[in-house]
């Protein structure tokens, strides 16, 4: 596609529920990233995919967070047993290779109530 697409744009869920956030990167971009941004802060790294594999998941806060990219294109960020502290903007970005400018999607605003 022309840009990075993220769905849904907004998600409100109850504490304890499971959520999935989807990212469709720019076609041909092998590098895909998930970042999390809280109000007034810069984006914080969660996970990096190069192709299908998670090359670096060191930013995932705990084992409730998991992400996949099974065919090297679309990625899904999965959060189990959501907590109020998970509320944030979740941003996906892609780039042609690792060390290049990122193209961010519009993000998913997650609110856990």
């Amino acid at each position, binding site marked *: 596609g022309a840009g990075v697409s993220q769905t849904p744009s907004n998600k409100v869920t109850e504490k304890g529920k499971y959520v999935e956030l989807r990212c469709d990167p720019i076609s041909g971009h092998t590098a895909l990233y998930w970042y999390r941004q809280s109000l007034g*802060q*810069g984006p914080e*790294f969660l996970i990096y995919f190069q192709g299908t594999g998670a090359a*670096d998941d060191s930013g995932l806060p705990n084992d409730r967070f998991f992400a996949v990219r099974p065919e090297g294109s679309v990625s899904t960020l999965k959060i189990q047993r959501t907590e109020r502290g998970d509320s944030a903007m979740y*941003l996906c970005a892609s780039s042609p290779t*690792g*060390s290049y*400018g990122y193209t961010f999607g519009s993000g998913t605003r997650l609110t856990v109530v």
Partner: protein
Amino acid sequence: GQQVMQIPQYQHVQEGEDFTTYCNSSTTLSNIQWYKQRPGGHPVFLIQLVKSGEVKKQKRLTFQFGEAKKNSSLHITATQTTDVGTYFCAGFLNDYKLSFGAGTTVTVRA
């Protein structure tokens, strides 16, 4: 935590004035990038600096990378209302992982 620091956190500018925002890293960076995020929007890539002492211009924006590759600056001349937003610098911690600063949020008084 973030390893790239930005100052000031907020910049209130009179339309037509110039200002500079600064970015500092505790470690030497291979390169540095700048992004702009409009209110309610997502970060948009502006530029990448790679060489020590590099200076690049985009219309009224001038970006500079320090000689030691540990700091960078963004200077905006003749500020316009379209410059409103948060400007982030980001440095690569390795070949692929960007670490973002907390940003400088710019507001403009007409």
